[in-house]
């Protein structure tokens, strides 16, 4: 019974984000075509990499004629946040045993956000994490394929699908904004992000740097007081 409840909750809670992910997947598929990638190459990248930020940046860099070494360095830097995500998720995935190696494939932005919210609420829940990862994976593959087939026929902005991404994160963030450490971290993240984006809008490391520094300020300024 609990098994079914967990799966149901995972599917319901991941669905809105899966729609947002699909929007980016369609964009990736379209960009892949523009970067002269074949359909099989576009799909292989989605199947094996399964990372929206990495894939979108790679096709953009391929289109710009960047070297393979610069692409790989950028991807390495972008992926540094996976270390933080993995570290933060580890306790929530305890009990997964050998499945942890497969669940590691789902360590990325959206599953991380949903997973953390779930772990804070009910404790470790590898099944929940597995299901949301599967939902996102299917959405990403389907959207990549559709994007590659459709080319440039669809305008996500016209339907507001592009707005689903920030609105989802705002809706997820609001219930957590309680307590001094969290508020200090959030405020620091706003200031650092705004400064970095204003200084260099093309900077792809904003999330990594903010993810490293803002929590540090939150802990140091408050001594990690109260419940985080």
């Amino acid at each position, binding site marked *: 019974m609990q098994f079914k409840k967990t799966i149901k909750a995972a599917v319901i809670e991941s669905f809105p984000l899966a729609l947002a992910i699909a929007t980016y997947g369609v964009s990736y598929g379209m960009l892949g075509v523009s970067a002269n990638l074949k359909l099989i190459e576009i799909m*292989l990248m989605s199947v094996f*990499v399964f990372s929206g930020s990495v894939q979108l940046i790679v096709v953009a860099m391929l289109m710009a004629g960047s070297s393979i070494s610069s692409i790989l360095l950028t991807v390495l830097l972008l992926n540094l946040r996976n270390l933080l995500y993995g*570290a933060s998720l580890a306790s929530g995935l305890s009990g997964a045993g050998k499945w942890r190696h497969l669940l590691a494939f789902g360590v990325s932005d959206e599953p991380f956000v949903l997973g953390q919210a779930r772990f804070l609420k009910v404790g470790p829940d590898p099944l929940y994490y597995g299901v949301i990862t599967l939902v996102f994976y299917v959405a990403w593959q389907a959207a990549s394929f559709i994007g590659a087939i459709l080319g440039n026929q669809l305008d996500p902005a016209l339907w507001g699908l592009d*707005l689903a*991404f920030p609105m989802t994160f*705002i*809706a997820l963030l609001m219930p957590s904004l309680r307590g001094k450490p969290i508020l200090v*971290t959030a405020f620091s993240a706003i200031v650092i992000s705004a400064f970095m984006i*204003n200084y260099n809008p093309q900077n792809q490391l904003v999330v990594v740097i903010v993810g490293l520094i803002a929590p540090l300020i*939150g802990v140091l300024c408050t001594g990690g007081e109260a419940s985080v």
Partner: protein
Amino acid sequence: MYDTLGLILALFVLTYGTRWLGLAVFSNISLGSMSQKYFKLVPIAVMVSLIMKQLLSQQNGRVEVSLPVLFGGIVCALSMRVKSNFLLSLCLGIATGLIVRRLL
């Protein structure tokens, strides 16, 4: 084709490698209380940063605030504060953003 396959393989190694490393290494390390608090604050910082990247966009060579994201976000946040209904807040935020976009 073969170059692209090599690139995809390298991307897989870099991406899965960092994902696995974070989980595998830290799941076997007992973190201190300050470290645990730090890592619990990471998602807040990441979410705020992802929102900021959507809010601030480059237009005509300048960084500008996206008004659809700003107003949609305010309505979404207020709705969450008042009703705590995720789906309703999401829909209200997107609808507000679309209206603002049409009015601009």
